[in-house]
Structures are given as structure tokens and as C-alpha cells.
């Protein structure tokens, strides 16, 4: 791992100089492909502004995390991004961007999760261009986002609201379909989401003057599937290899690419190809950045402060399972079904739209084969799901005996570093002790 002052980290120093101050505190995978990944993620604003200046149509998709950008990518001159991605700016910029303070002034204070930063961006016109259309998924998405989006609407925006209903298992005797993640879902639920996506499709066509036909949508799905497949491959290697071949933060960035391709699908694939080659090479050579006996951790939630993931690694842990809320963006989209139905199915793979128990069960089932030893629930400050997900996870793993810790991660966690590192270390020690006492 290298720090910002390493000779090869020049590209990151540029981003640091541009205001991403937290980079100075982070450690990076030295592979040029991984540095390129960082560069690609951090340069999104430039791409979006350039696209808008060139007459492109910019869509601010919000909270569906993975679905709407596939629709948008079917329109040649349109690009989608996630304004809710502003979530990590207060950390990256070490609060210097003032997004949270601006949200405070708009009455959306610390009781809400850092997604409120997007209000500051919209208000100041900073960090991303003003979208030509906002598309907000509400319904079973979180209260924090719903509140923030309504506040945004009050600032004179006119978002297109669409309903992402709560996931539920089929009732007895009810017609069901199998989702790409293997879960059974009621056919009526898929139909309801499809009806909403159809509404979005029509609205997008109207707004851009380009009708979205099935042919274009199928092509877009095919390309999105390439990205998703690549992200899944990297993730499987990163989480499953004996020596962790990719640091946690870089893995998080990789998963983020699955959401909306950082608004450049072709370049996104190149970046992923690069990262995948690095990871595959390390796996083949049996090298990694952590020793083979690092404690294998299932990590729930993206972190408000990226540094916290590195504290885990510095303490001797490694990720072997993640739920960064991106599962739906990595699920393969059926290329056989009508495109809107296929998209509806992946939208329902969102683990955040069901109960905590469902989310915990899915995360555990996916991670278990990788020999998980312990679980970290990284609580998002202010998040409405924060009070129930920890107990649900503890219950889900009770029979496995995996120790679970819930930690609240502030957007800049330095103030709480003693507490957080102490808990992580204690957790890893507990896991190591269990190794020795296990029969």
C-alpha cells in the first residue's frame, strides 16, 4: 500500500490538490490500474460537465442504485449519474466543501444520513452539473433519501418520482418468478415495478426526444451486463482468494462502478479490465496485501469514512463478504426477458427494500462459503435503517457463532478513531481466539 506522497501517486495528488483532502489520510493499492480506478471515479464531474456542455442530456438518477442508468444508457446523448453519490464527498473533501452545512441550512441536519450532502451540491451548483432531469425512486427506499428528495423538490426541482415497492416473498399459492439473485418474488410485484419503469421510460423518451425502443434497451442491457459480470469476477476474486488481492476501499470503488459506470460505459469496462487483470495475476501468483491468516470479515454498509475500512485491514482483518448496498447493481440482467421486465427483476434484488432479516440472510448466504469469521455492521450516521440492522444481523449469524460488532462511522471518523479501532481490534482478537478453541 502506498500513501499520497509516493512517487507513483501523482494522479491522486492532483485530486488532493483539487480539494479531496481525505486522500492524504488514505492508503492506496500501488498498481497503476488501481490508481486509474481512483482517477476514473474522481473525474466523473469533469466528464458530466463536458457532456452537458456538448449538448448531452444529464439524468440525476437517485436511490434505485443500478437500474435507471441502464435505461438512460440506451439513449445515445444521455448520461446518468447518482447525485446521492454525493454521500461520500464530505469524507473525501474532509467537510471542506460545505455540503453538509448547506443541508443544515436547508433544515436537513445531522439526524439524516450523509446523502443529504446532495442538497448542498444542488444548492451551490458544485460537484456535479445540474441534471436536466431528476428521477427519484421512492416507496421502499429509505426515509432519509425520501426526505432529502422532497426537500430537493422544494428547491424548485421537479423530480420524476417512481415507486420501488417493498420486496416481499410470494404469498402461499401466489404466482412467483425467480429473481437473478435466486430469490422468489411475486409476479405481481415484478409487474408493478415494470409498470413504473415503463413510465420512466416514456418520460425519458419525452424529455430527450428519443424514444427508447426494445432494441436499444437490449443493447444497453448487454453492455451493462458486461460491466456487472466484470465487477462480479473482481469481487469474487477479491473476497474469496486466500491472500486478499484487492484492498477494501478499491473493492468498494469497483462495486460503485456497477451502479452507473461512472457515466462512461466504455471507459468503465477498460478500467475494470485493468483491475481484473491485476487481481487475477495476484491470485495466480498467490500474493496479496494481507497475510493468508487475516480474519475474514463480512462487512455491512458502505462507510461514511473510507479510512475505517483501512483501519480494519491495518488491524489484521480482510473483507471476505460485503453488502455495500450494491447487490442489485451486480445482479445479471436477463437478456431473454422483455427488457423492462428484466430491469424490474434486478431492481427487486435491492436488499435495502425489504426487511432487515432478508438483507442479513442474503448477505450471510452469499458470504458464508468464503469462510466468514466475523461481521462488522458499519452504521451510517443518521440512517433510518441504523437501529434495526445490527440486531437483525446478530440474529442471522447467531447459530454460526460469528461475533458481530456495530460501529457508527462518522463522515470523518478521526474523532472516533480510538473507539472504532478499539472495537475492530477486539472483534478480530475474538475471532482469532475462536480459531484456537474451535474443535
Amino acid at each position, binding site marked *: 500500500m502506498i500513501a499520497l506522497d509516493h512517487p507513483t501517486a501523482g494522479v491522486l495528488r492532483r485530486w488532493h490538490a483539487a480539494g479531496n483532502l481525505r486522500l492524504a489520510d488514505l492508503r492506496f493499492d500501488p498498481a497503476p490500474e488501481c490508481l486509474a480506478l481512483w482517477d476514473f471515479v474522481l473525474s466523473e464531474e469533469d466528464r458530466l460537465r463536458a457532456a452537458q456542455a456538448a449538448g448531452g442530456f444529464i439524468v440525476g438518477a437517485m436511490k434505485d442504485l443500478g437500474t435507471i442508468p441502464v435505461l438512460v444508457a440506451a439513449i445515445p446523448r444521455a448520461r446518468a449519474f447518482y447525485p446521492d453519490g454525493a454521500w461520500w464527498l464530505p469524507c473525501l473533501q474532509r467537510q471542506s466543501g460545505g455540503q453538509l452545512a448547506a443541508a443544515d441550512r436547508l*433544515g436537513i441536519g445531522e439526524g439524516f444520513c450523509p446523502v443529504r450532502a446532495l442538497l448542498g451540491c444542488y444548492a451551490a451548483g458544485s460537484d456535479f452539473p445540474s441534471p436536466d432531469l431528476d428521477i427519484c425512486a421512492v416507496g421502499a427506499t429509505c426515509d432519509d433519501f425520501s426526505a432529502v428528495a422532497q426537500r430537493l423538490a*422544494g428547491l424548485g426541482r421537479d423530480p420524476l*418520482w417512481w415507486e420501488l415497492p417493498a420486496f416481499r416473498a410470494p404469498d402461499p399459492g401466489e404466482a412467483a418468478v425467480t429473481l437473478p439473485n435466486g430469490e422468489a418474488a411475486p409476479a405481481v410485484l415484478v409487474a408493478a415495478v415494470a409498470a413504473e419503469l415503463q413510465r420512466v421510460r416514456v418520460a425519458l423518451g419525452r424529455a430527450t426526444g428519443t424514444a427508447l425502443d426494445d432494441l436499444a434497451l437490449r443493447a444497453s442491457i448487454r453492455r451493462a451486463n458486461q460491466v456487472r459480470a466484470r465487477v462480479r469476477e473482481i469481487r469474487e476474486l477479491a473476497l474469496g482468494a486466500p491472500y486478499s488481492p484487492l484492498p477494501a476501499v478499491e473493492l468498494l470503488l469497483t462495486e460503485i462502478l456497477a451502479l452507473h459506470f461512472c457515466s462512461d460505459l466504455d471507459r468503465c469496462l477498460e478500467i475494470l479490465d485493468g483491475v481484473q487483470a491485476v487481481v487475477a495475476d495476484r491470485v495466480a501468483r498467490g500474493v496479496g496485501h494481507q497475510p493468508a491468516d487475516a480474519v475474514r470479515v463480512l462487512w455491512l454498509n458502505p462507510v461514511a469514512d473510507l479510512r475505517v475500512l483501512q483501519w480494519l485491514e491495518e488491524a489484521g482483518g480482510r473483507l471476505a463478504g460485503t453488502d455495500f448496498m450494491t447487490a442489485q447493481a451486480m445482479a445479471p440482467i436477463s437478456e431473454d426477458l422483455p427488457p423492462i421486465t428484466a430491469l424490474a427483476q434486478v431492481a427487486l434484488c435491492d436488499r435495502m427494500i425489504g426487511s432487515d432479516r432478508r438483507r442479513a440472510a442474503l448477505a450471510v448466504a452469499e458470504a458464508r462459503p468464503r469462510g466468514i469469521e466475523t461481521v462488522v455492521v458499519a452504521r451510517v450516521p443518521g440512517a433510518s435503517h441504523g437501529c434495526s440492522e445490527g440486531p437483525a444481523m446478530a*440474529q442471522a449469524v447467531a447459530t454460526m457463532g460469528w461475533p458481530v460488532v456495530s460501529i457508527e462511522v462518522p463522515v470523518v471518523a478521526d474523532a472516533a478513531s480510538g473507539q472504532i479501532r478499539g472495537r475492530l481490534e477486539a472483534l478480530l482478537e475474538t475471532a482469532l481466539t475462536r480459531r484456537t478453541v474451535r474443535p
Partner: protein
Amino acid sequence: MRVLFASPFIPPEFITAHGHRPSRVLSAAATDCHQGRCAVAAGFDEALVRGDLGIVVGSCDQMRRSADGRVAPTFRFHLPATWTTANAARQYGDELQRLSVFLQRHGGHAPADLATHLLDHDTRRARLRTGCSLLPARAAAEAIAAYAVSGVVPASDPVAQPPDGRVPIALLGGPLPVAAFDLYDLIEGCGARVVLDGCESGERGLAAPCDRRLAADDPLAALVDSYFLAIPDAFRRPDSLIFSWLERGIAERGVRAVVVRPDPWCDLWRAVVPRLHDWGRLPVVLVESDGESGSRARLATRIEALTEMLG
């Protein structure tokens, strides 16, 4: 069986038509809520006991995310946040039909004479609505709570209260647990009077008058109209019904200020406060009560300051 639910969007008449006993939960959790847990949502979990049926309405995270592992059979009702589209109304109607199957599976019968049940409850609610404009706020809230919990409405006609010089205000927020009804007294003690009860447990949570002809022809459509399309709430997107409802309160009852009382852990109602500020039609005061005496004093200061300002 007794069917418990905590949302005003579940029509009790729909449950009675299936041969069950509807009862809305209007109690906060008796035990201390842990960090971040809304007392109303926790109160619902406490109220549900073995032998009941439960309906969890997923209009907020707090309700939606905790819908597993309850002691009684529980139906998860997805209440759409969007409401201006045909899709949303259809989803609500579909959920009612799914609820019907659940109620039948758990000891109920096929809905019998739904239209009659609709008209009966519509009549009861009409009485309650009349009471709301005439009774002291607490008495009106108690009457609505009694109806919500057990379906009964007061037998006697309400008597209009003479004007008493108190400042007429709207109270807005999620459900006010019955145990917290002394808030109405506290407000009166501070020189104001709730003339528009926008708590979920109050007048705001009453379904709109039902279209009697539609009730006879298509009772499900009538339920969609008077519940789903009519009840203003903070979770709805857009949230415009709240403002049109308040506008009516200003015009019809002379409302001069809004006091918002969200549960401390309720994001949805807290976020209404800045929206009301932007709306700018009335002064807005946020009160929070965690039940401590110190917080009651702080609450009184806010309301007294409001009445001094408007007096």
C-alpha cells in the same frame, strides 16, 4: 380475530367486512426505545400479541424494516409513496385484495356486503368530523382514538365551544400516542388551541367522506378514493396534500400557526418542518417531547412564545 395495525391507511370497514375486529394501535412503546427507534413503531410491536393478526404498513423505514419475526401472523402492506399515478392507485387496490386473502386465510370470510360496511363507517366518521370542529381538541382526539381502537363513536352530539381567545393552531405530526394527549392541555395552558389536528391519530388520519354511489358500485375504488388518494401524510411523494389540507384549515378554521411534533427518530415528519418554512403561510414551531419534565418546560416555552407573538 383482532386485527391490529398502526396506519390510518388501513380501512377498518374492510376488516369488519371479512368478519374480523379491526383495532388501530395508538400507543407508544412502554419500554425505553433504543437509539434511533421510533416509539410509535416500537409501540406497535409491543401491542401485537399471540392470537392477534397484524398488518404492518410499510410507509416508513421504521415500520417496513422490522416486519419479520413477530409473534402473530403479520401482513406486510406496501403503501405506495407515489400517489398521483394510476399505477400507485392500482397498487393500493391490489394490496387491499391481497389483504383480503390474508384475512380469509386467518379465520375470516370472503368480504360480505362491503358497501354497507363502508357506508356505516362513513357515517361514523362524519360524526367525528363534526366533533372535530366543535369539541375541545383533546376531547376530539379522544373520540377519534376511541373510534380507531374500537370503532365506537360518541352517542351524543358535540356541543360547540365558545371562542376563548386562545390562538388557533394546527398540530402536525405522526401519531400522538394516547398517553401523550396531555399535550393538548399543555397547549391550551400556553394560550393556544388546536383547531386542526394534523396528527396521524387526529383528524388528519380520518378518511375522506366516501362517494356513496361509488361505494355501492365499486367499493374497492371508493376505498382507494377516500383513503389512498385523500389522507395527507409526510411519506407521500410529492407531499403536496399536506399543504392543501393546511390551506383549508386556514380558510375554514382560521389556523394561525403550525406546531409540528415529530417523534425524535422520525425522519419523515422532521423533514416537513423546513418545507413548512419555505411554504411560508404560517409561523412554524417544532416541538419534541421525550417525556422528561425538562423537555416539557422547553416545549411550553416554544408554544408560549408563539402565542405571545400572535397574541
